[in-house]
């Protein structure tokens, strides 16, 4: 079992003819049992093929060609066009959308997220690297080419949720090397407004028998960690959580923006120090360095 995706998940790649999309399409096709990428969409390029995947002008054409509803989409189109592409996906029945694109204005993201909620669809991202179930499927650039992803992601029972794409893989690789494999890893994106927060994904992991522990990566800025701490306190969750927080130096530099768009330290409650305290109060272990995470996870699961 896994969350969000499995071996049967069908998806399209919107913006498939772009440099990044060409890469990730190859990677997803090669990984695990081979992703079921049933089409790509780039307006004006109907008839082309990328690594054997047919390209269409519209999502509608892709769905018609497939002959039945398509589960997901990986969206890589530039920020000025992302909202339109995501709305198009949602309105053509797609229910899981991974948005890779970064630097999308918040207003657009809020609109996409709100429409998704209305239609019962889920957005992961934006500004994220997607989802991976080790040895089964990856949806997005996460982990890189198939053999690189295989190096970083061993199959196991730890769910990973990270605001940083790179750190998803760094932590997963550290866990895998220590004999703690991954059930599902989700790169949720670094922006101030994202489709799925830690707390919103926890119920999915809770319902996944395979998942026995959770590791999260976090940064200063925003209130998603507070939301997670509150969720943990209010729900009798069976899952121990270990967190790593980067950017502690930012406590000394208020008003400057580093990291992701959601990471400006403005008020006292946003500082790294306060956040770490709040997580610990909720029973979440906070690691000092990435290399400590496997031991802490083993202790927490014991």
């Amino acid at each position, binding site marked *: 079992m896994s969350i969000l995706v499995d071996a049967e998940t069908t998806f399209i790649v919107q913006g498939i003819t772009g440099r990044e999309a060409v890469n990730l399409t190859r990677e997803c096709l090669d990984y695990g049992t081979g992703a079921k990428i049933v089409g790509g969409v780039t307006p004006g390029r109907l008839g082309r093929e990328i690594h054997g995947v047919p390209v269409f002008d519209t999502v509608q054409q892709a769905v018609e060609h497939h002959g039945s509803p398509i589960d997901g989409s990986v969206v890589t189109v530039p920020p000025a066009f992302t909202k339109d592409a995501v709305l198009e996906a949602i309105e053509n029945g797609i229910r899981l959308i991974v948005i890779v694109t970064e630097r999308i204005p*918040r207003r657009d993201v809020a609109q996409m997220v709100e429409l998704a909620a209305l239609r019962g669809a889920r957005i992961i991202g934006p500004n994220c690297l997607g989802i991976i179930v080790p040895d089964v499927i990856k949806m997005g650039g996460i982990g890189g080419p198939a053999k690189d992803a295989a190096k970083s992601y061993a199959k196991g029972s730890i769910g990973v949720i990270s605001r940083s794409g790179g750190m998803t893989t760094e932590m997963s690789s550290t866990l895998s090397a220590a004999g703690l494999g991954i059930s599902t890893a989700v790169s949720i994106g670094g922006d101030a407004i994202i489709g799925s927060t830690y707390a919103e994904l926890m119920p999915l992991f809770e319902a996944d028998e395979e998942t026995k522990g959770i590791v999260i990566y976090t940064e200063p800025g925003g209130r998603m960690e507070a939301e997670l701490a509150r969720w943990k306190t209010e729900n009798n969750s069976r899952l121990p959580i270990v967190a790593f927080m980067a950017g502690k*130096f930012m406590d000394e530099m208020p008003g400057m923006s580093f990291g992701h768009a959601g990471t400006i330290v403005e008020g006292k409650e946003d500082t790294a120090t306060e956040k770490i305290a709040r997580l610990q109060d909720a029973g979440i272990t906070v690691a000092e360095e990435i290399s400590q995470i496997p031991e802490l996870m083993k202790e927490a699961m014991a």
Partner: protein
Amino acid sequence: MRFFEYEAREVVKRAGIPVTDFGFVTDAEEARAVAERIGGPTVIKSQVLTGGRMKAGGVKFADTPDEAVAYAADILKLEINGHMPRGVLVDPKADVAQEFYAGVVWDGIRKQPVIIFSPVGGIDIEQVAEEQPDKVGRQHFSNILPLSEFTAKQVIASTGVTGSDLNKLVPIVVRLARLFVENDMTLAEINPLGKLADGSFVALDAHMDMENEARVRHKGLLADLGVGDEETREAREPTEFELAGEAVDNASHRGVAGNVTEFDGNLGLVIGAGGGSLTLFDAVRKYGGEPANYCEIGGNPSVEKTKGLAKLVLSKPGVDKIAVMMSIVSNTRVDIVARGVIAACLELGMDPAEKISIFRIPGAWEEEGFKILEKYGVRYADRSTSMHEAAKLAVEAL
């Protein structure tokens, strides 16, 4: 990006919200004409991007045009929290019966904007929320349904405001919400929103922040306000080094070489991605290193962009070596980054083996990257060396 008060007031005015008849001047003598036009007591306010103006003496009340000129001259020379003023605002001193608060911000948990309103304005809204919670109303609103007046009416009424005040405030608050959305603001605040003796309302101060990512959509407005493309409006003005970093990033849309921030150490950092950079910067400092800069490579930058950034860092006075480190990469290619940083050394007539203290980027296309690094004799580490260990090695090599 943050707007100066005089700019924010202009934005508010354009949205159809009443503002005072203010004037923005950059020269003390110009204050005379404005004060004469106003024809009464004035408030002279420093235009800086930092708070604490009142305490620092950046806000003065003038009774005559002569006084206005004198105060303007003083304030134009007054540094506040490290900022020199862009100019001063000459504002009519208003006869205020009551001060209100109206603001709109993003709620990242509800994923919608939220209107915050209070009949207790003029002071810090967070303080009011703590001390008089029933006097602070909050109302989220949809981004896909049309914004309708009742939303504003609800939030105002929830704080106990009624009568003609309620009816006068509704259009103002709706317009504030609309301007927040239409201008891609991250914060739009009027504090205080003043009720005058005659019962009318006017914005006595305005604070606006526009989302950086959305600036490209508002070139017209920004041009009208005179906001230059190169102005970042961060907590402090960008240095030349930082502006050069931004130029490298803007030169191409392929990948990101962003948030180049100057520090004064001797270890140049070519690091990424966002999360990796934060982690590595913490790590370098933990092991006693002195970073010359911060930056974030991400999203698969071209060789050109990586090279541009590395050259900039290598050329910074005081930089002995650079450390090229990232968290395990998926969509950034190790071989492309290797090409970029090595090309940077070569173009500057430097030996990559000598100038690159360590190269630690595991991940996509790493074998290809290792081939390139070996060809040029650069010390590198794979994923079995943790990020913190790599930072330690980088620092020790200096």
